[in-house]
């Protein structure tokens, strides 16, 4: 519950460890950190409830973006058009 969290703290300076999470969480989720950096960030995320929630928020956001891929592709007319232009260039399909 948001009410149980010290949200008023966000009106002041963000603690340095939390700021590191905001700065580098996407690096962590994108596998761009060294093992040591990742471990340090994960440790803080495991200890800080707000950062844990921030982690979940960003993780589900990236999952939403990733899922978008499977939701649409090229219309059949585009596939037909590409194949037609390839055939004109000499392409022969296997079947």
């Amino acid at each position, binding site marked *: 519950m*948001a009410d149980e*969290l010290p*949200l*008023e703290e*966000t009106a002041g300076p*963000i603690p340095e460890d939390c*700021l590191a999470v*905001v*700065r580098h969480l*996407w*690096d962590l989720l*994108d596998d*761009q950190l060294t093992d040591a950096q990742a471990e340090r960030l994960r440790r803080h995320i495991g200890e800080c409830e707000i950062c844990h*929630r*921030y982690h979940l*928020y*960003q993780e*589900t*956001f*990236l*999952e*939403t*973006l*990733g*899922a*978008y*891929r499977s*939701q*649409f*592709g*090229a219309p059949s*007319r*585009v*596939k037909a*058009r*590409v194949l037609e*232009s*390839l055939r004109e*260039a*000499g*392409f*022969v*399909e*296997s079947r």
Partner: protein
Amino acid sequence: MRGHSLAADVTLHPLHARDQDERFEQEALPWLDDVYRFALSLTRDETDAEDVVQDTFLRAYKSWHTYEPDSDCRRWLFTICRNVFLRAREKERTTVELVDSEVDVIATSTLFFEAMRSGYEDLHARVDLAPALADALAKLPEPFRSTVLIVDVEDQPYEAAAQVLGVPIGTVRSRLFRGRRILQEQLLAFARDAGLAKQGAPTEGQPHG
């Protein structure tokens, strides 16, 4: 400049050509959906995207002999696709890119706290955002859109995005930061407009207490 086409450079024995066609069919054509999505993200127009996709595969086919077997065919096609697009719209090449990472850091955390306070913290998990996401992606300005598309939607590593976009990896990172933040702003605005706050969340505009 040489005055003859690429296709004229390559004269293949019919059997060899058949083998090349088979490889093209097996390795390049399966990425048509991915190239279309990428082209659509660049052009933001279905008709233009179709032209770009057609030209991409035609160029890919004609330069198939330059494709290195077992390398990343999708990355190769994305690079061709982006070049086709840029040639068609030279102005995109000169887009001014201003990214202030600290501004983005603060804005991203502020956005999260806003979402948390107003009942949207679990928005991405709770609501089907696909239609809103399509709209948000279409509105996302370049060069952030193509970067988000390659890395987040097409699941390519930073290195691939850097290669396709012709920029350093650090630029990919900063573009992603900005692009994702803008997308989150738009999804949050969509959720607010649609009244999708979690039940029991504080009413927007009320002081938190």
